[in-house]
């Protein structure tokens, strides 16, 4: 009758990290942003932490769960906002995957965070231009978005490392 599903320790970890990321995602969407399209992307801190602790498969789960569940909670599921979130998340996951599988020994938190964040904004900009606002004027935002991506990438890396330090100091 009832099928047996394996709920592994991993699943629980994914679920709890995803829950944390979703909470940050939802909270962040409540704050107005000074320039449309520019957000710190604090939820990515969780993805970053998970990546460095448990690898990119874990990070992919957490990130995709966050995008989906976050949009369901916010009521933006399948809306342009959701598509943009998804595009950004996929782009930064792809970047993480590439870095993780090729040059892992030579990069740390900062590099991964910055490159993921920049690819996140660029993917969103491109998708927005391509699917929603074909007006080429929107591409003018690119330099500004890349700048913000670098800054928040570094900032998020700092936060991630301080959280990680605490987790290490006080392993659960």
């Amino acid at each position, binding site marked *: 009758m009832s099928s047996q*599903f394996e*709920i*592994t320790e991993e699943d629980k970890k994914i*679920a709890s990290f995803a829950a944390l990321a979703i909470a940050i995602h939802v909270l962040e969407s409540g704050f107005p942003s000074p320039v449309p399209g520019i957000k710190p992307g604090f939820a990515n801190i969780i993805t970053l932490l998970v990546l460095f602790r448990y690898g990119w498969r874990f990070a992919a789960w957490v990130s*995709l*769960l966050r995008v*989906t569940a976050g949009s369901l909670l916010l009521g933006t599921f399948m809306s342009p906002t959701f598509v943009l979130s998804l595009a950004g998340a996929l782009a930064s996951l792809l970047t993480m995957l590439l870095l993780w599988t090729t040059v892992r020994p030579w990069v740390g938190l900062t590099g991964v965070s910055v490159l993921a964040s920049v690819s996140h904004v660029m993917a969103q900009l491109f998708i927005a231009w391509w699917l929603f606002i*074909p007006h080429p004027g929107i591409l003018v935002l690119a330099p500004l978005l890349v700048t913000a991506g670098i800054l928040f990438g570094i900032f998020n890396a700092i936060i991630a490392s301080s959280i990680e330090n605490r987790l290490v100091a006080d392993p659960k």
Partner: protein
Amino acid sequence: MMFYISSWNSPCKNIQMFARFDLMRWLATLLLAIALAATLTACDRQNLHRYQSFSFGTLIEIKIRNSDSSLADQASARLFHDFDSMHKDWHAWEPGKLTQTSDLLVKAEWFTADDSVLELIKLAQQYSQLSNGLFNPVIGKLIHAWGFQGTEQPETPPSQENIDKLLADLPGANDIEIDGSMMRGHNDQISLDLGAIAKGYAVAAGIQKLRAKGIQNALINAGGDLCGIGRQGERSWRIGIRNPSAEGIMASIELNNDECVFTSGDYERFFTHDGKRYHHIIDPRNGYPADKAVSVTVLHNNGAIADAASTALFIAGPNGWQEIAAKMGVSDIMMIDRQGRIIMTPSMQKRIKLEASESNRAVLIREPLPADFSAGSSMPGQRGHE
């Protein structure tokens, strides 16, 4: 470590199940859908066909989005040919079907009107009535006196005496009596000049011909007046509206399916004499170029109405346009007045996007009003013939 559903007592287990087992499948589906849509739009991008030719007394550009390029080639060639023959038939001063009709109207006897001009004259008469005579299709003599018929640039305005003489017996559209395909004139000063409706009629007719050939997406630009059907790929046809008093674009608009945008302005044809500028849109009430507005832009699904209304509303000016607009059934209007202010209807405001450079212009929002609500003014040149 293994957990079984039955023994794992988390309140969120169902959500987790859903998340773990269904998410993957539909994420894959979603990605597939996005990829497919992307492929489709990418393929669709290549088929814009563009043609241009001097025709109808102006430069005509036809843009067609279609997968069948030979159909587009053939349809546009046919259109240019049609524009040429319409232009010949409807020319106000070069001898042709329209000048022949004017000559017959002057004789005040019944005659059978030529098919090529009959429908256009009927429409012109109807719109002239709706515009309280401000759009007047029979004042060719007055326009001729101003020198705006012909390719030569006029240098001096006509004498006041000459204008007075022409105004004293100014014909109106109602001086043409039409019965079926029979026609009779009631004023020997009648001289048909359909310049304020012919282009609109022709461009709209062109669009209908394209549609009849199975073309769903097209834009015809006849010297700055445009009609469009369908879309430009994944978006609407996007039209910039030129600033009437400076270089550059002042606003933009996205055309709905089957819609025309026509502008009448004082900058299109004009001459300067003794430091004063005289343009080609003559007010039939005083015989002089209308001086109340700088430009009027009209959006309408009927090209002939858009064309005639932009002229009539231009002549009416900021204080008289609301009644004419209501009578003509035109609701999307933007007028630039002499002070450079933008006067527009609420429905136009929803459609138009002003450029950032125009942000310091005053914008007034006004509704078209039925006659009862606006101060009525009598219009000469509007007489019955019975």
